[in-house]
């Protein structure tokens, strides 16, 4: 979490500085406004100062992007950058509101202000999401993996599932054997499983032995090829019914009834694969919620910076 009881002490100086800057700026603004007919505009001395400060902050905020891309340069600690990004971004809000003199102005300044608010609000949404969603993910997605590797891991599970089914059900008629394809087919299988030990949980590699061919286990093969395989590869998009925990349990129960008890372990492993795939789907959804705001925050920040320079030029030209 970006903000919690443990690291709050590190945020206190930033919080205090932000409050001091806000109070001083507001005080100066209202002092300059005293006795005046209108609020000081963006071109008044305080307004210009606030605009300059706000613009520089926006530029600094934008620098976090290259900072992330150029990790190897080690330009300060990322946590410090992030704290500065958060608090300076929040300080820019009162500064730029004071810069406007409580007016929207014309088309460009209105667009700029709208962009600024969207960027700030999306940033705040991101901050809030960072507070809650990681812990939710930790609780609900024990099989969490790197987001970009979800498809890769799913393919692995499908490969393992296929080997498992071949081991238990035997070679299907017309199907090329693993040995024919150059692959090993030992009497043990290495599978990914989820385990929790104390506070530590995660996915690990587990070797399963004594898996041998079980007679009359054709229903398992059929079930695998009709449902499990598609679900492992496509996830929710497969629309196999396995995306529902309850329905999946019923489906696996039904398959078990048709099999010899010696095949039950294989069924349990396949069920575990489906459960992991379900968690990966959940991870993908949570990931979007956790990072989806960046689809607004980053592009609009770029537009904001470009238009900010246009605004500066125009404001000086038509002063």
């Amino acid at each position, binding site marked *: 979490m970006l903000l919690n009881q443990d690291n709050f002490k590190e945020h206190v100086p930033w919080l205090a500085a932000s409050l001091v800057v806000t109070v001083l700026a507001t005080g100066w603004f209202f002092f300059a406004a005293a*006795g*005046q*007919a*209108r609020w000081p505009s963006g*071109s*008044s*001395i305080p307004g210009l100062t606030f605009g300059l400060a706000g613009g520089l902050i926006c530029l600094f905020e934008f620098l976090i992007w290259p900072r992330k891309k150029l990790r190897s340069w080690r330009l300060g600690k990322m946590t410090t950058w992030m704290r500065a990004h958060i608090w300076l971004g929040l300080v820019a809000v009162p500064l730029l509101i004071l810069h406007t003199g409580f*007016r929207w*102005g*014309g*088309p*460009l*300044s209105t667009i700029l202000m709208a962009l600024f608010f969207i960027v700030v609000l999306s940033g705040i949404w991101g901050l809030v999401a960072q507070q809650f969603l990681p812990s939710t993910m930790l609780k609900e997605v024990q099989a969490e*993996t*790197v*987001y*970009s*590797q979800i498809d*890769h*891991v799913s393919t*692995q599970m499908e490969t393992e599932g296929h080997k498992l089914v071949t081991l238990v059900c035997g070679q299907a008629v017309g199907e090329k054997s693993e040995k024919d*394809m*150059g*692959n*090993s087919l030992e009497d043990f299988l*290495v599978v*990914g499983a989820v385990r929790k030990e104390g506070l530590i949980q995660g*996915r690990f*590699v587990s070797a399963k032995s004594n898996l041998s061919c079980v007679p009359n286990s054709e229903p398992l093969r059929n079930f695998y090829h009709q449902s499990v395989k598609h679900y492992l590869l496509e996830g929710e998009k497969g629309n196999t019914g396995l995306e529902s925990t309850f329905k999946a349990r019923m489906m696996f129960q039904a398959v078990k009834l048709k099999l010899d008890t010696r095949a039950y372990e294989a069924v349990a492993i396949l069920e575990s694969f489906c459960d992991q795939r379900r968690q990966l789907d959940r991870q993908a959804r949570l*990931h*979007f919620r956790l*990072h989806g705001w*960046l*689809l607004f925050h*980053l*592009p*609009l920040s*770029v*537009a904001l910076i*470009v*238009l900010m320079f*246009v*605004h500066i030029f*125009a*404001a*000086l*030209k*038509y*002063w």
Partner: protein
Amino acid sequence: MNKHETGKQRATRIRLNYYRTWTPFDRCKAFLTLLALTMSLGWAAFVFARGDLGSYVFSRGTLADAHAAWNENCSVCHQNFTPIYKRGSGLAFLDKMFPALTASPDTRCQSCHTGPAHHDSQKEESTPACGNCHRDHRGLDINLLKVPNADCVSCHANLEANLKPGYSMRFAKNISSFNPGGNHPEFRIIEKKWQDPGSIQFNHKLHLTPGLVLEAGSPAWTFADIPEVDRAQFGHTPGLDLKTPVSLDCRSCHQLDPMDSRPSPGAYEKIPRGGIFVRSQGNLMLPVVYDRHCRACHPLNYDDGQKGVQAPHRLQPDELRSWLEGVYANQLVQANPEFAKPKRVPPVPLPGKTGQEPEYESARVQVAARVNLAMKTLFFGKKTCGECHFADGEDHPVRKGFTSIPKRIRTGLQAPAGKELKADESITAWFREAAGKLAGQAVFPSIPSTWFLHSRFDHSDHRFTDCKQCHDRAVGSVTKLDVLLPGIESCRVCHGPLKSTATGFSGGARHECVECHRYHHGDNQLQGRGAHDWTPKTLRNLQDLHKALP
């Protein structure tokens, strides 16, 4: 070909270079970022490429309707990289470092607008630029003349500090609020107890009393005493008894529109077109005019033998005398055409002869006598010239300020005891003698059409109130010297912050400085908007103006 899976491969559940791969989310983010960059740069390029036409997007708001034609043409008013109005940092060293802060680029404004300076006594640094007060870009319906109080109070709260060295104060030093309890002074004309500088004697109390009589038992002035053509103007309605006393009110004489005189049918046609029927804006009372407001009761009858015949108004005594001589001579010639025939008169009179025939001499004396009698009737008669007008004199208020009281003609026209008015004696010469230093000319009435020279008041905006609500002293005023204007408290009943009182509410109406005052004296009677000072030095071609060409 895939061989036996190694232990390392089995343990590697994810690719080691996974961070180099782009997910759909990353691709979407990058696409949107690129799109935002392209769109913002493209839009900026498009705007700049359009030049002035594109500069509207930089505008901080729509221009007021007076300037709406140049909404998309910033350079009409703005000079590149120069402030449109004085800012000033409040810090001398900063202002010196950046002269643009205190520059006053009024040139562009003044190419179309000029106006007299507010006061030549104000310091240069206290003189705002046009844009300091007239803030545009606040919408189409914004009134650029509605300047907030603070713009005025910035100087008037401490006027002395904003005065050039060597100038003396002519106005109140400190004004910051019109509110009750504020430091806006009483109107000077009331505070200094000025007297009416007009040179027309008038008794408001008499004229506002029904029947126009002050003494009990005196006969009332009735509609029967007014010519039929004028009765409607003074309130007579068809069927009303002519013996009904005439009852005047303020509007009988003080009108905002010429048609308020309610002329009788046919009377309008008799009035020269383009004469007195000029439409007014309705803010000021129209001048009281003899022909419309006085003649009905004060006809200039000059000859008892010629009822209904009136002398023309607006003639000075000499002119009136000439006019009367013409009238009587004409009557004599019409009665005796022989006088019109040419007579041969020897160039040099014969010895013992005057050169004139006795009958001619008799006629001349006869005409002179009738003229003198008519002049006496007009000047001494009740309800005629001398009733209201004053004679010119060296101490006339127009020249000496609004302090002295002009002498009345009638005062000087009292004939010395035992002196008879002779037939051949010029009444005007006699009048001059009697009036001492007086020049013998009737003084121009000089009734002020505008009392407040530094503020404005719109009567038409206040027409819903009874006149006496503010001008209550008019009912009891018996002398022309009374200034019947209301004081500032009368204004504050409505114009001030809304507050509850024991009797209800007071205030609520607008009470900004510009409600009554104009910086450029646009409503000053001497510097109105039609004044030459308001015309730009260089007149421009309309097409050039619209294209912002110089």
